[in-house]
Every structure is written in structure tokens, then in C-alpha cells.
């Protein structure tokens, strides 16, 4: 125990704090980059999955299979697969790129279900009204369905991204200089494990907690019926 107290001043020195700040930034950056790209691709996946017609059956199955399979494989296995696959293709890809690709592949599978649920929450009658006016499927989705589905999609998508901040700790295993990797490094330099991993845990908490609060706030705000929100806006411009 005394050892820990002895180490505290040296541990919380300028260089160490800068290191932690940088690696926290990296953790946040790769999570957000992977989730944002994955979120975009998930829209494409859902759109393909909803293609009607017999000829599109294989396409639909591929989309369903993708979501099902990736939800059943541990993230760390995906990270290893991406790492060795990418290295076999282009040996000079950066570890950050590899981490972002792995996060992205995973995020597609998880957010696709969120997006599908959101799109399906818009009444079918809205789609029919659009069809009756000859709007194409893409136009119907972009102009009618998606604008109404946002309030249902955004809060859980944010919740997923925030919770995935924690899961990215696993990419430390392949040597990305994010928070957990730096933690292990500091531990190897002789700093107390309790001190180091307590601090690292607190860093993750500082990233995750405020963002999850923001997500909950958005959920409440977007959950307010459209009319009530608008009326408020109209009365106090």
C-alpha cells in the first residue's frame, strides 16, 4: 500500500498525464470513426435487406447472415481476423486503420438492427401514400421514412457507440496506443497495478459517463411527440 502512495506524485506527472490524454483521444477517435462509418454502411445494408422481389433473395440472406454472424463472434476475434487479413493484403496498413475497420465491421452488424427497427416504426400507411404518388423506394426512404425514423434511431445508436468505447479496450492486444495499451505499458514500467488500472478505469468513466448522459437526454428530448416540440418552438421563437 505504501508503495502506491509513494508512486502517486511521480505517476501523475506531466508526461504521464499527456500520454493518458493522448491515448484517451485515440480511444475516442477510433470508436467514433468506426461507429460513424459503420452507421453509414448499416443504412446501405438495411436498404439492400429491404429490397423486394424474388431475385433479391440471396442479397437479403447475405445481409441477414452478416448481422447474425457478427453478433455472435467476439470483438477480439474480429480484431485478429482483420489484423491478419489486412496484413496479408497490404503489409503497411496502420494499426489505427485496422482497429477502425474492425470497429466498423462490428458496428454495422449492431446498428443495422437499430436502423431497421427505426424504419419499421414508421407506419406502413406513410409508405403507401408515397408509393401512390409514384415516389421510388429510395425517394420514399430518404424523404418520408428516414426523417420520421430519426428519433427512434438516434438514441440507441448513440448508446451503442458510447458502450463500444469500452469494448475498444480489446484492441490494445494488437498494439494500438489507446488507453488500455498505455495502462499496461505504465504497469510494466513498475507503476502499481491498482494505481494504473484504477486511473485508466476512471479515464474510461470520464469518456463514457457524460456521453451516455447526453444520449439519455437526447432520448427524452426526441421522445417528446413531434407536435408538442413544435408548438413550444412556435410559441417562443
Amino acid at each position, binding site marked *: 500500500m505504501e508503495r502506491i502512495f509513494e508512486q502517486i506524485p511521480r505517476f501523475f506527472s506531466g508526461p504521464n498525464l499527456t500520454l493518458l490524454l493522448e491515448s484517451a483521444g485515440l480511444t475516442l477517435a477510433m470508436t467514433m470513426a468506426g461507429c460513424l462509418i459503420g452507421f453509414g454502411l448499416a443504412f446501405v445494408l438495411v436498404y439492400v435487406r429491404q429490397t423486394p422481389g424474388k431475385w433479391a433473395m440471396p442479397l437479403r440472406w447475405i445481409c441477414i447472415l452478416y448481422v447474425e454472424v457478427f453478433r455472435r*463472434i467476439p470483438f477480439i*476475434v474480429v480484431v485478429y481476423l482483420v489484423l*491478419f487479413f489486412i496484413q496479408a493484403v497490404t503489409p503497411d496498413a496502420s494499426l489505427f486503420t485496422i482497429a477502425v475497420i474492425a470497429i466498423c465491421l462490428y458496428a454495422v452488424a449492431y446498428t443495422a438492427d437499430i436502423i431497421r427497427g427505426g424504419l419499421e416504426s414508421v407506419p406502413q400507411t406513410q409508405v403507401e401514400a408515397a408509393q401512390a404518388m409514384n415516389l421510388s423506394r429510395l425517394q420514399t426512404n430518404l424523404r418520408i421514412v428516414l426523417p420520421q425514423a430519426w428519433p427512434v434511431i438516434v438514441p440507441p445508436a448513440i448508446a451503442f457507440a458510447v458502450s463500444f468505447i469500452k469494448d475498444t479496450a480489446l484492441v490494445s492486444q494488437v498494439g494500438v496506443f489507446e488507453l*488500455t495499451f498505455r495502462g499496461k505499458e505504465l*504497469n510494466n514500467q513498475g507503476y502499481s*497495478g491498482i494505481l*494504473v488500472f484504477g486511473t485508466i*478505469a476512471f479515464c474510461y468513466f470520464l469518456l463514457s459517463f457524460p456521453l*451516455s448522459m447526453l444520449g439519455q437526454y437526447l432520448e427524452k428530448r426526441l421522445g417528446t411527440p413531434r407536435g408538442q416540440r413544435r408548438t413550444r418552438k412556435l410559441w417562443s421563437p
Partner: protein
Amino acid sequence: MNYNFQFGVVWENFPALLEGAWLTFQLGCFAFAGGALIGLVGAALKTYAPWPIRFLVDCYVVFITNTPALIQIYFLYFGLPEVGVRWSNEACLLIGLTLNAGAYLTLILRAGFLSVRITEIEAGQTLGMSLLQQVRYIIVPHIAKSIYPALANFFIVVLVMGTSVGALIGVDELTGQAINLSSVNYRWLEYFTVVAGMYVVLTFIASIGLALLGRWAFRVKARIF
């Protein structure tokens, strides 16, 4: 890409992978069961206990759910020996996962507690049910039905995401075995492809089992896919 896949060596070591899968399954079950006990106590305290205890439960849940399971396990594995507590790597993994699952299950079970409507209990009272009967015939079936899908889903999360963390502290569960074996002969892609397939099969079996259990015990339709 001119990578030459060679799966032969993987099949030679398949029994070792199967052992890993068995350990994964056991770890998942024990962590989930322990977590469910913590969750039950946590949810009960959060619903009925006085505020200082409720606050402590809140702290536990908020801190665990906002930090990575890996860091929690590292804390047990690298940190606790400094204060004289030495656990094996399997014990660290299992205790860490249980504490982690406990926090999430507190949230899930608490949502179940809140879903019981007072009118249903009143209906039971007017039928002259005793407190025990109300619990047995109204409250438990209602909670089970409302949270079973979430529980089944979380079991898969523990089984997949949870246990695989063990690979990073040298536990020989499925992912750990894959790392051990592939670092001998460098057939990483082959090993991890096969292991990914094994996870899919393992969770699929678990999903079907859970769906059947749910249908039989609580008459809920849990989603397999």
C-alpha cells in the same frame, strides 16, 4: 492477395479448440449465474432499500457499466496481488465477469421489477391470494415474461464478449486457445476463421436452448435469430 490457406493444422488441433469452447461455455454459465444473483439482490435493494443503500447500488452499477470489463479484470489480475490477494487467472476472469454481469443484470432485473403493475397485484389480493401466492403466480411470471428476451440476449453477450476477454490474461478459453495454438505455427487466419465459426455454432446452440427454455418455462417467444 496470394495468401495460401492451410486448414490441415487447425483440424489436427481441433480437440484443443473444443476444450477451449467447453471452458468458454462453463465460464459464461457461471458468470451469468453469479451475475444474476448479484442482479437480483441489486435490483431488490434498488427498489426497496433506504436511500444510502440505493445510492451505493447506483454507484456500483454506474461505475461498472461505464468502464471496460477488461480493465476491471486487469485491476483484479495486476492490482490485487499488491495488497496480498492472489487469484489464478481463471478466478480473476470469473470474478471480474461476475461483478460486471451483476451490474448489467441489476439494470435488467430492475426494469422487470418496475414493469409489474399495481393493478395486477390488487387483482391478486381481491382473489384472496397470500403474499407468497401473489409472488408465485403474479409477480414472478410477469417479470420473467417481460425481461426474458433481454436476459437471453445478455447471456449471449456474456458468452461471447465477456469470456473472450480471458484471452488477454492467458485463460485458455476458446479465443485464448486460438492465440496459443496459432502463435506456434503462425496460421492465424485459419485458426481465427475456424474459431469464429465455433463461436457462431456455440451461441446458436445456446440461443435455441434459451428459446426452448423460455417457451417451456415462461411461455415467452424468445428470438433465436
